[in-house]
């Protein structure tokens, strides 16, 4: 949806006020229930055994000793999560990430899981599972992984997006290209060109609440799951697909969520909890220890980005080019593609080209993290933009204003923009007193632009009016940090009633 200016001058009664959040009292008294705060009758405790190797063939898993331990109610491996993905490679990757099949693809990759009467017994059971590994060479660095002769994460990955299909397998799962115009011609028109390589390491979302769920599969094939998630509809669909449930028979309830930042949009342990519960015939609670969160739930991509930008002395960018390599972990993602789409989206460019490479490495599967992929691309592009402005001798803010996208600009990723606020925003920043405030010792000042889209997911909304005239708003969207308050305000505004 394009920016709608018609609300700009509207006065609101509820929207814009700051009432106490509806979830507030529960959260300050410790009553709010997060993923790990829920229990079910007869519940077991789950635990996951993880690979100590970054890359290894799983030759054999012997669970017999674990299964015999008193108090152990279920032990599962990939054999208990058969492949029902029917050729859907995205789903297969999720299944493989939840429980390694023939190979462990990163340090921390799940290889087996148990459900037992208590946490101690579950941990003891894990120690009794014997896994025979054949350790394979691994690659974790995004630039090393694309070099010829690098260890292959998968022997059957042939770069998609290249025509004709390459004859040799590689760790580049996909190439994607965005842009328009002729960059070679554009660079010839440039007076100054800045060309740099930028590398960023992977970073973890670091939500304070580790992943946690309670899964309960009933004898009649219905199932219940309580889970901290950023999208319970997606979780329901994915879990149902992987485990062969009818979507209508799997009820997923989202708990309070202790931070997600994108990392809780993906399933990690939830299908495992369901598989354990199905095998044990009892509810299973599965909580990731912090160490597992860091080892086995997705960080951002590590990146290596080549940027080349040329401009005339008057500050007009004549050409902009980027080659972006994003680590995906062991499974193809769309991280480099998102980087390629967003990298130059802030600017009005005649000649632009961004090429993204999805690079497979022996690290945990990369996950969404706050405008996934865009910050790294912005870091690279904006660093080069700053340097270019300095070389031209132009104020970096003015330089950006001069090149900012505006209504009617054909964006670097394709669409033509409707009304877009970057120009006025930059002007407001330029005119702000803080931009001219004197700097103290060891202080600096800088600015950068970034671009992100909006995505929708599945949800549903109910608005009920009670017999007493009060309104109940039920929204099937997870409240990650304020949706209840803000959506209630919107409802109150539209209905012309007070928030209280």
């Amino acid at each position, binding site marked *: 949806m394009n920016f709608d200016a018609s609300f700009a001058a509207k006065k609101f009664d509820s929207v814009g006020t700051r009432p106490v959040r509806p979830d*507030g*009292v529960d959260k*300050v008294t410790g009553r709010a229930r*997060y993923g790990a705060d829920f229990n079910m009758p007869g519940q077991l405790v789950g635990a996951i055994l993880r690979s100590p190797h970054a890359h290894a063939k799983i030759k054999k898993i012997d669970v017999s000793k674990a299964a015999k331990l008193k108090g152990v109610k279920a032990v599962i491996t990939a054999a208990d999560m058969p492949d029902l993905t029917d050729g859907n490679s995205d789903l297969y990757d999720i299944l493989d990430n939840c429980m390694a099949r023939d190979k462990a693809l990163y340090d921390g990759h799940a290889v087996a899981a148990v459900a037992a009467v208590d*946490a*101690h017994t579950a941990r003891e059971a894990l120690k009794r599972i014997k896994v025979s590994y054949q350790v394979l060479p691994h690659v974790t660095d995004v630039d090393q992984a694309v070099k010829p002769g690098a260890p292959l994460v998968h022997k059957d990955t042939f770069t998609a997006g290249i025509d004709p299909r390459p004859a040799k397998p590689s760790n580049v799962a996909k190439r994607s290209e965005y842009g328009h115009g002729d960059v070679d011609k554009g660079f010839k028109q440039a007076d100054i060109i800045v060309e740099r390589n930028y590398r960023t390491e992977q970073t973890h*979302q670091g939500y*304070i609440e580790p992943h946690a769920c309670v899964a309960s599969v009933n004898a009649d094939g219905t199932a219940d799951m309580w889970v901290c998630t950023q999208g319970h509809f997606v979780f329901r669909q994915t879990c149902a697909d992987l485990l062969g449930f009818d979507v209508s028979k799997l009820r997923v309830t989202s708990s309070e969520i202790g931070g997600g930042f994108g990392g809780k949009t993906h399933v990690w342990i939830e299908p495992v909890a369901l598989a354990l519960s199905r095998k044990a015939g009892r509810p299973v609670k599965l909580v990731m220890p*912090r160490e597992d969160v860091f080892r086995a739930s997705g960080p951002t991509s590590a990146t290596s980005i080549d940027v080349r930008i040329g401009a005339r002395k008057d500050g007009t960018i004549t050409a902009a080019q980027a080659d972006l390599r994003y680590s995906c972990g062991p499974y193809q993602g769309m991280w480099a593609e998102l980087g390629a789409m967003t990298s130059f989206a802030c600017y009005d460019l005649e000649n632009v080209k961004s090429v993204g490479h999805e690079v497979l490495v022996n690290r945990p599967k990369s996950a969404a993290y706050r405008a996934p992929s865009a910050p790294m691309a912005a870091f690279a592009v904006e660093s080069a933009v700053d340097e270019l402005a300095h070389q031209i001798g132009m104020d970096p803010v003015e330089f950006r204003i001069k090149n900012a996208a505006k209504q009617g600009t054909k964006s670097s990723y394709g669409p033509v923009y409707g009304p877009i606020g970057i120009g006025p925003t930059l002007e407001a920043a330029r005119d702000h007193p803080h931009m001219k405030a004197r700097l103290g010792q060891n202080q600096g000042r800088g600015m950068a632009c970034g671009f992100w889209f909006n995505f929708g997911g599945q949800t549903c909304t109910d608005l009920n009016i009670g017999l007493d005239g009060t309104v109940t708003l039920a929204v099937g969207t997870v409240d*990650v940090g304020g949706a209840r308050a803000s959506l209630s305000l919107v409802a109150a505004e539209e209905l012309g009633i007070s928030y209280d």
Partner: protein
Amino acid sequence: MTAIAVSTTINGDDVDVLCRTDETLLDVLRDRLGLTGSKEGCGTGDCGACSVIVDGRLVCACLVLGAEAEGRHIETIEGMANGDELHPLQSSFLEHAALQCGVCTPGFLIAAKDLLEKNPEPSEEEIRFALAGNLCRCTGYDKIVRAVQDAARVMKGG
């Protein structure tokens, strides 16, 4: 097996509980006693989400054995409000929107309570120092600091 009986006092109430010797106080509070207000964010004393007060000392419940609770007085988030009446820190956190996802909030409140009991008029720097053992990923800390400053003022009767 190696379960031992522990008699302790939690939020003023006498409590008897059986636990394994290697269980932490946090495990005992959450899994044995249903006091899930204290959260396990890390289990290694880094995040402060399990902050409780034991005999007047602020500690991470994940770094205390349940067995050590014997004969001690423990204060948790569940005992912070007086019935329906919120503690001034709790009210202040609500008013200042000093919480978003809220999972770190119980730990921050307990740590802030400990601070104000020992230092009723802390400076901003002292507040930030005292709360350095509590991690928050949502707020950026600023609103938390302001909420504590305001609660200190209210508690002093200002």
